[in-house]
């Protein structure tokens, strides 16, 4: 099975745009097209024990997508700006497990719980011989952020600028002119890998407790691993309007991995800050545990229902979503990315905060 490819790519033509201008075709005709192939292996188990009190559903999968369709920017000097290729071998291996149980069950009381977790390991086994790397999104944009596919790497790899480090891993500092005492930076053109946006493990755990007519439900969502770049923080630091920069100004210095830098303004404004600053410095671990959902319900007594003669059942409930974090490392909600675009999965730029919502509902059955 494979994905659709656009029409006419074996015979591309130029167009006249709505404004009457001539838009020349910029891609080479795709002469040696091959079908995209996905080979997948999947094994699973579904089992229930102790009179359905415990259930297990587990799946292991391994998929290899070969000959994926790419529109590639060409090398400088090529007579076309883009070429189409079928290339690569991208592998996904992972587990999806869900476990449910009813640990307590009496006449009036029931506790039901369910935990789901999933992992996925992605690896780019090969790309294309002429293609060392595939860049998502536009070039020519002065941002220290790029998402690239590189052989041996994986989807979601974030590239940008990083501090220059010696063999022991210590940051190297400048010794001349204005750069004296400032960390040295490398990676112009976003050439250094600084993280990966994808989580190592996702886990959701819900509980449903009911006693007579009352019910209580909550869901805890956990995300372990994955990185995200905050350009909001980078930008605010550059302008000196973040809390971090205020503290540094008051103290008169910044600490960077144990090294004291006295030129606070220079550090934030000219070295690390801004959208073209040091990517590495603004990469946050996206690990977080949150109370995703909580609800309390009450089912009105059956005796009342009979009196109405119309209603069969009525339930009052009160629920809230995104209530709080038990734990998070980033100074913002790391699940909040710039957009759903492939290239924007590891970056946050002035995102709207996640909203907490409260709701009240009355459900009637007739």
């Amino acid at each position, binding site marked *: 099975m494979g994905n659709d490819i656009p*029409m*006419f790519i*074996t*015979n*591309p*033509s*130029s*167009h*006249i*745009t709505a*404004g*009457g*201008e*001539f*838009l*020349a*075709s*910029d891609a080479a005709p795709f002469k040696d097209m091959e079908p995209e192939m996905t080979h997948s292996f999947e094994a699973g188990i579904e089992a229930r024990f102790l009179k359905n009190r415990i259930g297990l559903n587990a799946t292991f999968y391994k998929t290899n997508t070969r000959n994926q369709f790419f529109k590639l*920017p*060409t*090398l*400088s*000097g*090529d*007579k*076309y*700006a883009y070429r189409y290729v079928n290339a690569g071998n991208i592998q996904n291996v992972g587990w999806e497990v869900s476990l449910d149980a009813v640990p307590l069950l009496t006449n009036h009381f029931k506790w039901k719980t369910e935990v789901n977790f999933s992992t996925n390991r992605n690896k780019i086994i090969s790309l294309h011989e002429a293609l*060392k*790397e595939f*860049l998502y999104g*536009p*070039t*020519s*944009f*002065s*941002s220290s952020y790029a998402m690239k596919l*590189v052989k041996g790497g994986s989807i979601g790899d974030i590239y940008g600028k990083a501090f220059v480090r010696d063999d022991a891993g210590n940051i190297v500092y*400048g010794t*001349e*002119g*204005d*750069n004296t005492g400032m960390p*040295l*930076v490398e*990676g*112009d*053109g*976003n*050439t250094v890998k600084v993280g990966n946006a994808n989580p190592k493990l996702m886990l959701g755990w819900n509980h449903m407790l009911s006693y007579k007519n009352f019910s209580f439900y909550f869901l805890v969502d956990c995300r372990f691993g994955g990185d995200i770049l905050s350009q909001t923080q980078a930008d605010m630091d*550059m*302008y000196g309007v973040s809390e971090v920069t205020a503290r540094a100004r008051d103290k008169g210095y910044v600490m960077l991995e144990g090294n004291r830098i006295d030129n606070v303004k220079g550090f934030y*404004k*000219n070295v690390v*800050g*801004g*959208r*073209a600053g040091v990517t590495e410095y603004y990469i946050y671990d996206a690990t977080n545990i949150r109370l995703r959902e909580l609800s309390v319900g009450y089912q009105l007594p059956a005796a009342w229902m009979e009196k109405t003669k119309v209603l069969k059942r009525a339930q009052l409930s009160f629920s809230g979503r995104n209530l709080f974090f038990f734990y998070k490392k980033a100074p913002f909600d790391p699940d909040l990315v710039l957009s759903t675009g492939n290239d924007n999965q590891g970056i946050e730029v002035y995102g709207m905060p996640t909203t907490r919502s409260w709701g009240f509902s009355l459900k009637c059955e007739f």
Partner: protein
Amino acid sequence: MKRIIVLIGMVFVFLACTGDFKEINTDKSGVTDEDLQADYNEHGIRLGIIQQGIYFNYDYGKGKNWPFQLTQNLNADMFSGYMHDAKPLNGGSHNSDYNLQDGWNSAMWGHTYEYVFPQIYQSENATRDRMPAFFGITKILKVEVMHRVTDYYGPIVYSHFADPEARYMPDTQKEVYSAFFCELDTAVAVLSDYIVEHPGASEFARFDMLLDGDYDSWIKFANSLRMRLAMRIAVASPEKAKTEFRKAMDNEYGVIREADESVAVSTASGYTNPLGEINLVWNEAYMGAPMESILNGYEDPRREIYFATCQNEQFAGEYRGIRQGTCFAHNYYNTLSKLKVTQQTDAVLMPAAEVWFLRAEAALRGWTDESAKTCYEEGVMASFRQYGILQSDAYLESDLLPADFVDTYDMENDITARCQVSPRWLESADRDTKLEKIITQKWIAMFPEGCEAWAEQRRTGYPRLFPVRFNHSKDGCIDTETMIRRLNFPGGLKTENAEQYAALVEALGGDDNAGSRLWWDTGINW
């Protein structure tokens, strides 16, 4: 029997399928090469894209104007001292204070190789045997497009373009300039032959955005361009420079002389001047401090043609500019002098005045028997006439000197005038002073074409510009007084094509940073 019918049926199905395939696989909303064969459109449209790709404002599907801001306006237009943005982009620290932005600096390279050179290559192949006049014009445009690229970076991919066998290896700048002169030889030869064989022909007139459509005019442009390139290598390769300059001078079709022969991208047929959009709509192009210093000091009559007066009452009627490299982080400068360029202003690539100043310098170098003074004064007059100013006598007798720069909001940015020559030609002056006068006047006349102005400023050191106040170049690679010498190659090349990148750096013969001098940038003038 039934099986045979099925088989026959299948044969028909397959035949029908392949028979219609070409038709089905043709985009009906598109324009095919066959559609374009009428009226030389197949050649003319490509050449239209190339002409829009010099002072880049060709819409390749991602909108206009912003590519130009990156390719030219935030680079050469600023480094030449012509302009500065009034907005504190990136918090006030960017190319202005040599905190070079790779995304900006790679734009000239990327846009040219993706959208312009492929059209040049196709045009060369399509016209070589079938339409020699268009072939000649393609060659001239190729040189005009690509000299701006090599003058930014140094070595470029040129002779091995579209040559995967040679793995798109680059040429040194010396090799590229040699190739330029050969391309111009070809262009002049085929156009001269064509004119003799087809007197009065003007097939290109309909597609001509730069000149009047006459093939004679294109030969004049080729000759003038040869002068420009010859002068660029005056010190790097003096014999070649003199030979090429003389070749241009002696060609029977001559060079550009009159103000109305200036080469400019016309906005009459769809092309819009990107600088006009950046100036009027985005409010991101203002007078540079060196322009303020020199035009105000000279009381130059072109000042009111190039720039508007300040928009706030306090400085009403004054012309005030912005100094490069001050790292300002406020918007106070946005009431200072804006440009007067609009979206409909033709984008000047080579004013007639430039050619006179090239001749003045050639005379000064002893390459010709002309009078440097005469050529210099002709240059000033041609520039004045270009803008409808008829009186130039007083200006040519003027001993006024450039004014000190006084910043409107921050006295820390004040600086005394660097340029110390006046408009009046002095026959008794030494050759350095004479050269400084010629190039300073050429710089004023070239406005707002920053690419050529910046290249000549780097070659000669004139006009003397103000150094940056803050220098945030990477690892101090740019010296504050020596100033920026080039743009580094696009950072992405290091990983996308490491072999090509290594070859580019080797061809550069120095470190790939903005402090390295290009081949023609020798640091001396004689």
